């Protein structure tokens, strides 16, 4: 097998690669320590232990853009279809185009960079693993280009690397579309639209309820944790820490079970009979339909080009 693959030896490549890998790590370390110093100065400490902040899902829903004005039902439906079409892409060039479209959509929806960065950063770990591991572990196939970065003895398979890049491009393209999809209407409106799209009522209600009580429990957890810290609790890698964390989770579950009963009582006492009342009406204009069709066609077009094989491997 290995002899049918094309092999290139890169002299000192290992060193170059090492430098290339180390440089970003050094940059990250420097930036982190700078930020830590800044935080200390500003009084924001315990960053690592205590940062359970939850991003507010629809913080940008009060802006105005094409996406904000779009009928949520059509927005959700067509963008979801688009996401699946993008997920089906197999060639880097078209995945790259999809990423460009996503960036354009984010720009058009006036989503601040902060939000998009947060979404992308959340995936860096998982995708980074692909980028590092795939080129080194992909089994060699005929026609593969193998690079030996001397003196590293393991071949760097370019096909594996490109596969990882393809995945990253697709993941980013889809992740970015989430912003105009979810962040351009208040959550209840989005969920209402899901209801119109035949998602069962109970499921929609459960999403809303969970979303609401996340903030209540976050607050509870934070208060409990502060109380623990004030009584001297510091996290370490040892059994005592895990014991305390186990109690902490247990307490969180107990109080959540108790709250479920109280919430349910409150719902009953306001006439709850198993269904939540529905009150939002949507109206789709021709423009909305056109915009929806545009996105589906865009996705279909990408998939068509992808599959007709104009570019086999870029």
């Amino acid at each position, binding site marked *: 097998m290995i002899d049918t693959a094309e092999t290139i030896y890169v002299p000192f490549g290992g060193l170059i690669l090492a430098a290339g890998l180390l440089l970003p790590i050094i940059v990250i370390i420097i930036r982190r320590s700078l930020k830590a110093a800044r935080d200390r100065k500003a009084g924001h400490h315990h960053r*690592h232990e205590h940062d*359970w902040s*939850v*991003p507010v*899902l629809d913080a940008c829903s009060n802006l105005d853009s094409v996406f904000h004005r779009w009928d949520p039902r059509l927005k959700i439906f067509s963008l*979801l279809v688009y*996401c*699946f079409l993008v*997920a089906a*892409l197999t060639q880097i060039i078209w995945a790259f185009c999809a990423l460009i479209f996503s960036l354009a959509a984010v720009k058009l929806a006036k989503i601040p960079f902060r939000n998009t960065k947060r*979404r992308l950063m*959340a995936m860096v770990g*998982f995708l980074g*693993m*692909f980028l590092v591991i*795939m080129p080194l*572990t*992909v*089994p060699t196939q005929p026609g593969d280009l193998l690079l030996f970065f001397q003196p590293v003895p393991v071949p760097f398979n370019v096909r*594996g690397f490109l*596969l990882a890049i393809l*995945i990253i491009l*697709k*993941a980013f*393209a*889809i992740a970015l579309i*989430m912003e105009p*999809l*979810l962040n351009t209407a208040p959550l209840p409106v989005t969920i209402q639209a899901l209801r119109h799209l035949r998602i*069962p009522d109970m*499921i929609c209600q*459960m*999403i809303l*309820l*969970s*979303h*609401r*009580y*996340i903030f*209540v*429990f*976050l607050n509870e*957890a934070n208060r409990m944790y502060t109380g623990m810290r004030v009584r001297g609790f510091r*996290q370490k890698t040892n059994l005592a820490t*895990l*014991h305390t*964390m*186990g*109690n902490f*989770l*247990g307490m*969180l*579950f*107990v*109080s*959540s*079970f108790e*709250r*479920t009963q109280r919430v*349910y009582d409150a719902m009953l006492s306001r006439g709850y009979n198993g269904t939540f009342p529905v009150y939002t009406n949507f109206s789709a204009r021709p423009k909305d339909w056109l915009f929806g069709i545009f996105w589906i066609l865009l996705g279909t077009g990408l998939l068509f080009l992808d599959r007709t094989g104009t570019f086999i491997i870029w």
Partner: protein
Amino acid sequence: MHISDGVLPISVTIGCFAATIALTAVGVRKTPAESLPKVAVVTSAFFVSSLIHVPLGPTSVHLLLPGLVGILLGPSAFISIVLGLTLQSLMFQFGGITALGANSIMMGIPALMIGWLFKQLKGSTLKGHAIAGALGGFLGTVLSVGFLAALLYTGGEDFLGVGKIAFIASLPVSIIEAIIAYFTVIFLFKVKPELLK
């Protein structure tokens, strides 16, 4: 550890979605209607728990908790997992909307299995509960990562390496989950044993 969008072949992505819908429907049917709002509220607590960092040497890890979800919710565990992942997917993009099906399968089926297993093993003593809890915490995570590796493998041999490494890398997390589940179950047994029934 969640799968992101665009990793799995499109046929597997859609297949997992279909399976998730089917299992959710079964779950909804098995849960009394009045319990569904309660499952939703408890899910928020699991969501918050999964945000908590636990230190591991120089770094820290998040908890996955499929074992504890199974132990506490039994047959309703799958709905709770789907719900929690939907919210995570909506809010954080640990794994996006197209990968929701695969992630639900990966976490939800182990949760159901652990729920069943815990019931068989716990007995009536504190010791029995604690050991069953630890086993649940450990196996829940191991099975989840096992599912992850298996799902990755559907993308072809190319993904086998990533799957293996992910599996090995998650072993320390599995041990932490086992210990935490052990202590959590002890706590619950002493404070509110009816939650473990």
